[in-house]
């Protein structure tokens, strides 16, 4: 084999002689012309009791330039409507609140968890990333992202690198992402723990202090992926996230209650003014949050049926510790269909500053929030996906998921009459998604 001359002609002649053919048909083989791999999806998310509804359209396209050089583009448009809990507790009587814009008021019925129904937003997001091999066993990727809502802007970038070891049976990944977000609340910013004021009638006046706030997020990830024999893959990730800046939800309030009875402290707006009939304070959160998470995922192929099991443990310095357990099964059905049942369980402990309500005492705590998402939570998801591959290689899919969230206020958090009478803003939700994957 040391000689350099071509052997093609001699090989072709020998093969023809072996197969007893005179002139074989030429080989015509090429990589498919399609360069763009496109995923499009329409998603409906609807919470019970006409709470948040999200209609979302998403499209992503990946272009392969060969030799694993890839450009990925992604765009999403969300339309959010509905009502969301404002943080105040349910009371025996009706309640009235100043709307976030401070230009009106809204009321809730006796015994109901107060919902702010003025909530609606349009979110657009764009992401672009590039990935390519680098040296023999390395691969790098870099991306930029941008999203915009009425009151929120996000700009972020990320870098990732992987290195293969052990004859590519082991892959180490390291990734970093940085985001610079900006919040500009409707109705302006409120001083933390300030009282909800009466609504104003003049258009040029705002209830809060105005302006916008920044939030920066740094995420770091270290991961190992290990091939286990012919049919298994294990992935373990450690991630660290550091958020600084304005982490408060500008629309969330706490009910101010009598420190003995636990009942809402009532208030009478001045004559002619429209405003809250009780005392409510805007929430206050720390301006840093450090989170660590450990994630393990095992995927095992049982001759076409693929089982995926995942567990995630996360903790942060707000004392929110969470655990997630998830299982997914990929079940081929016939030649061109598959089913994917999915279950997920998530549990978290309450943040150290979570309160069901705020006692009317001096001094006020530094941090307090009645956002149920910071309470102790149990959530369950069950879902099923069905996909069908068409003759031209495109794929249709439909996914239905049911989600249930139950929050719990820590008992030591409750005051007087609240014990045994708490009403958390629990809900369930339906997620319905239609997807179409094709090549261009």
């Amino acid at each position: 084999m040391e000689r350099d001359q071509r052997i093609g002609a001699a090989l072709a002649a020998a093969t023809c002689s072996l197969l007893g053919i005179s002139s074989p048909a030429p080989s015509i083989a090429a990589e498919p012309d399609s360069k763009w791999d496109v995923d499009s999806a329409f998603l409906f998310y609807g919470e019970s009791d006409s709470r948040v509804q999200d209609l979302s359209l998403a499209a992503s396209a990946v272009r392969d330039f060969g030799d694993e050089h890839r450009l990925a583009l992604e765009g999403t448009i969300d339309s959010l409507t509905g009502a969301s809990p404002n943080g105040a507790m349910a009371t025996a009587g009706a309640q009235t609140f100043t709307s976030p814009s401070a230009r009106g008021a809204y009321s809730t019925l006796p015994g109901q968890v107060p919902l702010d129904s003025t909530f609606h937003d349009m979110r657009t997001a764009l992401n672009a990333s590039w990935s390519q091999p680098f040296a023999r066993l390395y691969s790098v990727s870099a991306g930029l992202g941008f999203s915009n809502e009425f009151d929120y802007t996000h700009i972020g970038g990320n870098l990732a690198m992987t290195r293969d070891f052990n004859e590519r049976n082991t892959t180490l990944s390291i990734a970093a992402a940085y985001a610079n977000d900006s919040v500009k609340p409707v109705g302006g910013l409120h001083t933390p723990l300030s009282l909800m004021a009466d609504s104003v009638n003049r258009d040029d006046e705002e209830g809060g202090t105005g302006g916008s706030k920044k939030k920066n997020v740094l995420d770091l990830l270290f991961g190992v992926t290990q091939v286990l024999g012919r049919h298994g893959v294990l992935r373990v990730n450690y991630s660290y996230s550091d958020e600084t800046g304005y982490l408060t939800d500008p629309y969330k309030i706490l009910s101010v209650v009598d420190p003995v009875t636990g009942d809402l402290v009532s208030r009478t707006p001045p004559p002619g003014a429209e405003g809250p009939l009780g005392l409510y304070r805007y929430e206050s959160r720390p301006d840093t949050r450090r989170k660590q998470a450990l994630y393990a995922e095992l995927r095992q192929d049982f001759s076409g049926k693929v089982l995926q099991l995942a567990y995630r443990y996360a903790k942060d310095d707000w004392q929110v510790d969470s655990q997630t357990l998830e299982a997914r099964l990929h079940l081929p059905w016939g030649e061109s269909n598959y089913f994917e049942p999915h279950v997920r369980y998530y549990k978290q402990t309450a943040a150290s500053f979570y309160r069901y309500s705020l006692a009317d005492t001096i001094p006020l705590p530094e941090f307090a929030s009645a956002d149920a998402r910071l309470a102790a939570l149990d959530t369950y998801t069950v879902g099923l996906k069905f996909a069908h591959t068409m003759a031209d290689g495109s794929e249709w899919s439909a996914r239905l998921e049911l989600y249930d969230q139950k929050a719990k206020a820590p008992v030591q958090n409750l005051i007087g009459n609240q014990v045994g009478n708490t009403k958390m803003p629990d809900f369930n939700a339906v997620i319905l998604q239609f997807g179409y994957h094709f090549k261009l």
Partner: protein
Amino acid sequence: MTARQVELTRGDDLWIARFHAMGGPCEVLVDTDQEPLARMLAVRAAECAWRIEHKFSRYRTDNIVARINCARGATVQVDEETAGLLDFADRMHRLSDGAFDITSGVLRRAWNFDGGTRVPTAAEVARLLPLVGWQKAQWVRPVLKLLPDMQIDLGGIGKEYAVDQAAQVLARISELPALVNFGGDLAVSRPRARDRPWRIGVEDVTQADRQRAVKLIDLHSGAIATSGDSHRFVTADGERLPHILDPRSGFPVRGAPRSITVAAPNCTNAGMLTTLAMLRGPGAEAFLEAEGVRHWIQR
């Protein structure tokens, strides 16, 4: 042994027949919606695979290969088909300056490519080398005489040869386009209507996540062969040695790619190009570039 069964399933606009032969899963895709026709063609292709496996398997004691390997230095007269394969092996041995050698199978007594770390000593390998070397055989068609204890193994060409034979049988007996796929080596019997290709997925051996990562190739006519098994290797001092042995040294070829896929007019031709490229080790890319054939290499 797996039962000789051909199972058909309906694809979107074709029938897919599956059976087991040559130590692995085999498929025949027939471009028709008529099940009986598809079954008839698939059974013919399967019979072709089983016949060739039976005739040339080195694991049997009742075939021509066993007769040659047990001849203990005596001459053996072979049939036309075997003679054709031996002629081909003889030409390949000369074309590759001895790198391709059907007598190299005895080296497996020293090498066990089971993913372990057992590497034989140079002395162990040297003891086997006298039994390796096609140039030591006397081949005067149709008579073959090996040295006592020398053996031949047609495994390096048998599967691709079977793919071509099956594709030829299907082309001869039917107008229907079909794709023959014996464990990843494939050939087209006839081009499909309206210039539609057969879309072929090649396993991406470099990705930890082998479920998804697949290189797609549209094959209109001709054949494709892939060489390289990511699961057969031995590790020496942390370096992974592939299962491709250089019969001249008795040791694995260093620097060979993980996987080589080549497109050629027929599968035997494609398979031989992948093998010869593998034997070039680090020079595999340069070799295939110089030959001017469509190829896909995974390192």
